[in-house]
Structures are given as structure tokens and as C-alpha cells.
């Protein structure tokens, strides 16, 4: 059975784009406290471009669609989040290959490939207080429940992302701009972990809406 097809992927990306746009201020505000006040602006710029690109035309396969998203992000976002989210989607693309659709396990494999890409690009470990602290637990939760099907797996992933995001809020950051603040970063929620949580929530809801 195939629970995740091109339509679902497009719903996912457009839902993510919508929510990033809605929450642009919030993400930028978080980045003002520990960074340079542009995370919401960066993500919104990138996904506005992605939306346009996806609109342009037929992307036959999941792989082609994910690649288009990744390339567009790398070419339009800049900053740290551009290469990171860009790499995430490019790795998804490779994992999807030219399948038109995939199942719970296939999606999980692709998402984990994405996480690995982010890890390699950014060299962040758990507890460095970055998007990785939302992404890694999300995938562990996903894998743990993938057997029950894609929807419960994605619900668990979204919940785990949020938990991971909040878990590292008290910590000092060791990667990204927040690391420059030393102790002053303690107690501030990480912008990237927040956008990653939005990503998994969007994925959950996009599939549920299918």
C-alpha cells in the first residue's frame, strides 16, 4: 500500500510554506533573542520561492519534487537554514528516487536520510541546541510507531519534535549564532528547532488531510 504520493508531498510543502509565512514574525522574534533576527524571513523567502516553483510544473516523481524543493531552498534562503533544509530535501530526493509514491517505511527511511544530511552539513550533535534536537527525536518516534502506519507515526514524530525543541530550551547553544551568547542563550527557544517542529506538524496534517 502507498500512503505518501506526490499530492501528499505537495500538500506537505504548501502547508509548511503557509505556516512559515503565518509564523514568520514568531520565528524572527526567536532569532532576535539569540541570533540575527532573520530566521522567519529566511524561511518565508525560501518557501515562497518553493511554492512558485512547484506551481510551475509537473514533477513526476517524489524524488524530482523533493529535489526541486532542496535546490530552490539552497538558492534562495542563504544563512545556516538554507543549506541545512536544502540538504534535508535533497537527501529526501535521493531516498525517494523515482518512485511516484512510498509507504510508511519508505518515508521514514527518506526522512532519516534527510536528518543524516543535516548532521553532516552542520556537524551538530544532540544537545548543541539546533534543529537537530527536534529532528532526531522526531525520527526516533516515527520509527518506533511506523509499524502502526504512517499517520500515527507522523503524529508521534510531530509531538516528539516539539518535545525535543522544548527540552533544549534551557541549554547553552554550542552551534549556530546562539553559541556566541554563551549563558545568555539559556532559556531561549531555538528558532531552527521551532521551524523543524512546524515541518513535522505540517507533514502530519498534510497526510491526515489526504
Amino acid at each position, binding site marked *: 500500500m502507498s500512503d505518501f504520493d506526490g499530492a501528499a508531498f505537495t500538500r506537505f510543502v504548501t502547508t509548511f510554506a503557509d505556516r512559515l509565512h503565518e509564523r514568520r514574525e514568531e520565528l524572527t522574534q526567536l532569532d532576535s533573542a539569540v541570533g540575527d533576527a532573520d530566521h522567519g524571513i529566511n524561511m518565508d523567502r525560501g518557501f515562497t520561492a518553493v511554492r512558485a516553483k512547484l506551481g510551475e510544473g509537473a514533477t513526476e516523481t517524489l524524488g524530482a519534487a523533493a529535489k526541486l524543493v532542496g535546490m530552490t531552498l*539552497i538558492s534562495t534562503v542563504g544563512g545556516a537554514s*538554507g543549506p541545512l533544509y536544502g540538504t534535508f530535501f535533497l537527501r529526501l530526493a535521493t531516498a525517494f528516487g523515482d518512485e511516484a509514491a512510498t509507504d510508511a517505511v519508505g518515508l521514514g527511511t527518506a526522512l532519516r536520510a534527510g536528518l543524516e544530511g543535516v548532521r553532516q*552539513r552542520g556537524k551538530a550533535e544532540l544537545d548543541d541546541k539546533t534543529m537537530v534536537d527536534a529532528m532526531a527525536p522526531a525520527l526516533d518516534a516515527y520509527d518506533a510507531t511506523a509499524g502502526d502506519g504512517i499517520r500515527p507515526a507522523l503524529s508521534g514524530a510531530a509531538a516528539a519534535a516539539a518535545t525535543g525543541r522544548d527540552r533544549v530550551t534551557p541549554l547553552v547553544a554550542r552551534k549556530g*549564532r546562539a553559541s*556566541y551568547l554563551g549563558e545568555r542563550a539559556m532559556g531561549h527557544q531555538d528558532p531552527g528547532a521551532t521551524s523543524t517542529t512546524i515541518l513535522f506538524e505540517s507533514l502530519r496534517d498534510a497526510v491526515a488531510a489526504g
Partner: protein
Amino acid sequence: MKKLINAPDTVVDEALAGMLAAHGDLIKVIEPNVVVRADAPRPGKVGVISGGGSGHEPMHGGFVGMGMLDAACPGAVFTSPVPDQMLAATKAVDGGAGVLHIVKNYTGDIMNFELAAELAQAEGIEVSSVVIADDVAVQDSLYTAGRRGVGGTVLAEKIVGAAAEAGQDLAVVTALCQRVQDNVRSMGMALTSCTVPAAGKPTFEIGDDEMEIGIGIHGEPGRERRKLGTADEITEALMGPILDDGGFASGDRALAFVNGMGGTPLIELYVVYNKVAQMCADRGVTIERNLVGSYITSLEMAGCSITLLKLDDEMIRLWDAPVNTAALRWGA
């Protein structure tokens, strides 16, 4: 938000258009938003490029020209440029002798330059990179993002650009850039925050009697907030860590660079320089060369940064070499 702009999302493009209109003799602007030396590529010359978020003007576009940068890649305000820009810049300036990427140490800059370098190498262009990380406000560490690249970048671009202009090869130019990085230290402070146009409000709030010590160049808060001090106290707070971490000792020769953050007028920078000169003299450090002005800024932020570079004869010769850019010009 009080700025001389038309709209947050057009400010970078319009400023670039203005630069081109003003300095068409020095630069050209190619897609996607890359400032390129008018006469690039120069056959047989090592290309030197840099880039970073906008909002630091005149860095980097104002340093493109004879004897300094061959190209600069301005990103969105405070946002690292995208690989497409560095790839286009690298191709545009490659004269067959390879291209040096001078990268300020920020996660975003590092990753975007890295991606571009991979793509350029894939197209057969020899690329080397040097990361500038001179901000002593941040403790150096393998386990963190490390030190920020700040004022030292300006000095590296001038000195390295002169070596490339003189025909040095990529290995030599790269090693020289690394030597500048190893010998330069900086630290900055802010009296006010600044407003990212697209954000529309100041990045941080600060009281009339407070200041931020140990800031970077992106309007971010610093390492600590203190009660506002006098120019001399502030200069001591910045110079102490610079002199100690850089191991500046009696007999050393230095280039002293007092930089304005964008909203601080020259009269105040000279007050700071006056104290910098005294402190160097007290340490027996001879200031052989100096630079006073706003060259690496944080939009309209009020504040300053101090940079000290330990000089050797070659660096002095290269600093004095002719340069002709919008922001730095002498001997030409």
C-alpha cells in the same frame, strides 16, 4: 523603523544599483547579485572573493577593485549569500590561477561557501578557502561554532588582495590570508541595537544607561550587558582581551583599526583611537599603520569595534600597495 529606504525587500537591490551607478568604473554587477571587478577576469591572476549578508557596508562590495577583492557576494540583510552567488563570482573572476574564498566564520557563510566551492571545483576551478575568526569576545573551541569573523576580514582582504594583484600564486595567497587570520584579533561593543528592515523593529532593547560588550556584526546582543562607560573604559574593555589573546608584546608592530558600527560618527571613533594609541604605547606596541572609520558595519547600530593585527614587513608592504575601491583607495 526610520531608514532611508523604499521597502525592506528592495533595499539590497537598490543599494547595489546605487553602487553600480556610482562606481561603474570600478565594478560591474552580474546575476545573481554579485559585485565583480570591472576588468575581471584577469588572466593568470588569483581571484579573491568574499561575501556575506548585506548590512555591513562598505564591506564587501566597497572593497571590490584593483588591489583588493575581485568579487563580493551580498546576501539578504544579515543573511549569508547563497552558493549560486559564490559560484557565479568564482567563475567570473577565475583567470586560470584559481580563486581564494575569504569566509567569515559563521555557520551559514561556511556552509554556503562550502557548497559553492564543491560546485566550482566540480567545474574544474581550483578553489581554496580561508576562514576569518578574529572575535575574541567568543571563546575558541572545537565543540562550538567558534569565533566570529569581524574586523580582521577587512585587513585580510586588503593585504591578500595586494598579494594577488602582485601575481602571487594561490598557495602563497592562501597561506598569507591564513597568516593574517592567525595574527589578528578584534572585539566590538554597541550603544544601540539596529533594525533589520524586514523585521521592522530593533533586534534588542537596551536602556539609555546600558551598553552591550562583545557583539558581532549582525545586531545580535553581545556577551554581556554593562552600565554605559566612558570611551576610555570601553576602549580598555575591548583592548584588554585583544592584547592578551593576541599576545601583543613590547616590540611588536601593529595595524590598529578602529571601526564604527554604522551609527557612530567619526569624532567619537577618534576619541577611541586616541585611547587605543595610548594603550599600545603603554605596552610597547608600535602602531605602524592604522585605519579609522566605518568599514564593517551593523546597519545603523551605534558602537565600535577595535582590531589589532600583528604586522610583519611583508604585510606592511602589501597594506601600503596601491588599492582602488569604492571604500579604500590610495596610491591610485
